[in-house]
């Protein structure tokens, strides 16, 4: 089904657009005619989602329920039960937490294949402050049976993940991260496959398993570590937290050190996922989890926040170098 629906992408148009605008301002208006039953629902966050152009041309595909996330998920479930395919979107912090029980009830327990899109996950809401940072969403979403949890690394992967989700009959949460000017990682991207992590750079001594906005700084950190130590570093984009590519995670056991990097609490997210898998077999290498400590942030701009939590190329590489000295 997905291959039938797959659209050709000119990746260059997504350069400098960020994940949100790439999906909702560029991709969606071009393909909506292929999805006659698709409804985009929002709790008064369509402007923030860059849906203005889409709404102007395709108002019949859009529904605003007001600032009411709980009802947003209930209405989406009702529409889904009557044959519509629904995308429900709001800031990641609100669409995962304000209506968490509704997500569990309608999407997980009743199994309605709603696509939940969490905008601006991580720390990118900057001066909005800690109420607006979504840094626990991977932990709380991945525990719900049946829900797929996707965490794309750049705009191209985000578009492909979205295309996959709206063509799928499964409930999906897509976590959008990073700033609008985040660089592209992928030139080309074939069919999105949540079961297969992407090996972006091979290496033998150290493995960095990363996701979302942390993929780019992890690639840069890998170069720094290689230059300073002469060791080779593997970098894996684990863009799906559920389902999990256990084989690729397991293949990192041949490294002397495994590192996870995520714009999320180190509790319950990518680091915990990888730890769980590694512990299933004996003699796994050391694991270092790079992420946000279990405390609230001192508020500032995005760069200030990333630096505060060691989520920069320098921060990640320093953590690795310190670990190697142990």
């Amino acid at each position, binding site marked *: 089904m997905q291959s039938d629906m797959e659209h050709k992408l000119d990746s260059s148009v997504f350069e400098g657009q960020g994940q949100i605008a790439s999906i909702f301002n560029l991709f969606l208006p071009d393909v909506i005619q292929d999805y006659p039953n698709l409804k985009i629902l929002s709790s008064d966050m369509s402007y923030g989602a860059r849906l203005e152009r889409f709404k102007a041309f395709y108002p019949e595909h859009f*529904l605003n*329920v*007001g600032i*009411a996330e*709980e*009802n947003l*998920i*209930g*209405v*989406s*479930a*009702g*529409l*889904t*039960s*009557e*044959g*519509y395919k629904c995308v429900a979107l709001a800031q990641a912090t609100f669409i995962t937490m304000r209506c968490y*029980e*509704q997500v569990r*009830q*309608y999407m997980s*327990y*009743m199994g309605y294949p709603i696509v939940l899109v969490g905008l601006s996950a991580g720390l990118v809401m900057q001066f909005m402050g800690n109420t607006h940072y979504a840094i626990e969403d991977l932990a709380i979403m991945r525990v719900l049976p049946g829900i797929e949890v996707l965490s794309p690394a750049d705009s191209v992967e985000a578009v492909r993940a979205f295309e996959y989700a709206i063509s799928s009959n499964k409930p999906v949460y897509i976590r959008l991260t990073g700033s609008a000017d985040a660089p592209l990682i992928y030139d080309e991207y074939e069919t999105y496959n949540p079961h297969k992590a992407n090996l972006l750079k091979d290496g033998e001594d150290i493995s960095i398993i990363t996701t979302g906005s942390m993929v780019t700084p992890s690639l840069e950190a890998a170069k720094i570590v290689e230059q300073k130590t002469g060791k080779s570093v593997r970098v894996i984009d684990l863009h799906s937290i559920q389902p999990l590519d256990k084989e690729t995670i397991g293949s990192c056991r041949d490294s002397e050190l495994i590192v996870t990097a995520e714009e999320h609490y180190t509790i319950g997210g990518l680091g915990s996922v990888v730890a769980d898998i590694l512990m299933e077999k004996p003699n796994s290498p050391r694991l270092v989890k790079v992420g946000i400590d279990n405390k609230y942030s001192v508020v500032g701009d995005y760069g200030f926040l990333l630096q505060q939590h060691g989520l920069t190329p320098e921060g990640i590489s320093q953590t690795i170098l310190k670990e190697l000295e142990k």
Partner: protein
Amino acid sequence: MNELERICHDIRVNIIELAFRAGKNSAHCGGSLSAVEILATLYHKHLNWNADDLDNRDRVIISKAHASLVQYCVLESVGRLTKEELYTFEQSGSHYTVHAHKDIEKGLEFSGGSLGLGMSYAVGVAYALKEKGSKARVYVLLGDGECDEGIIWEAMMFAKHNSLSNLTVIVDHNHLQADGFVEDVLDTSNLADKFRAFGFNTLELDGHSIDELSKAYSKPSETAPTAIIAETVKGKGVSFMENKYNWHFTVLPEGKYKKAIAELNAK
């Protein structure tokens, strides 16, 4: 006693029977007995439901899902559940638990259990049906205690804003919730005024009067969602349960069971 009154009597006997069979698992007698006429009148006189044409069925969503007990009994009375299925209520492994699990062919539209969520779901269903030009109606049963939940009012605003005239909300206004009288726990004051203020075509009636319910079901608004505030008695029909909050969810011991059945059969 006319035919539908007799059916209501039999439903009450079944509620008591199933509550007794549930034994120490307890059952929601009070809030089921209050909704007997509301659901029996709807299912027996007004509901469009044809197993060969499920797309066009009227949808009944029990948002106060702890009243699934009365829904099961009503579904048995219209022949969609067998007596054998009914008697599996609250037995380990049964499909028919305290809160109904979605099974459209049986007439169970929704997996309930979390208060308020049926209402939100119902307005989504009504929106979809209206947009598709379906003539099917959506009925949703709320508890008055359930109206404490914020999502109810989010959904009401959505229903009015989208002129969901295919939606009928029935509030089983029995004045009791788990901890006591609604007026003492969280006073929702005049629910009818609130529904009117939210733009609903709002009717107030005796929720045990088949005639009044039938008239209300017959004449929904053609422009706005309709609300029926049904004045009821929690535990209706069993004297020692009536207006007693502690019969919301309770074990029914054998002595009380026999007394209840004897009382019902004396009527």
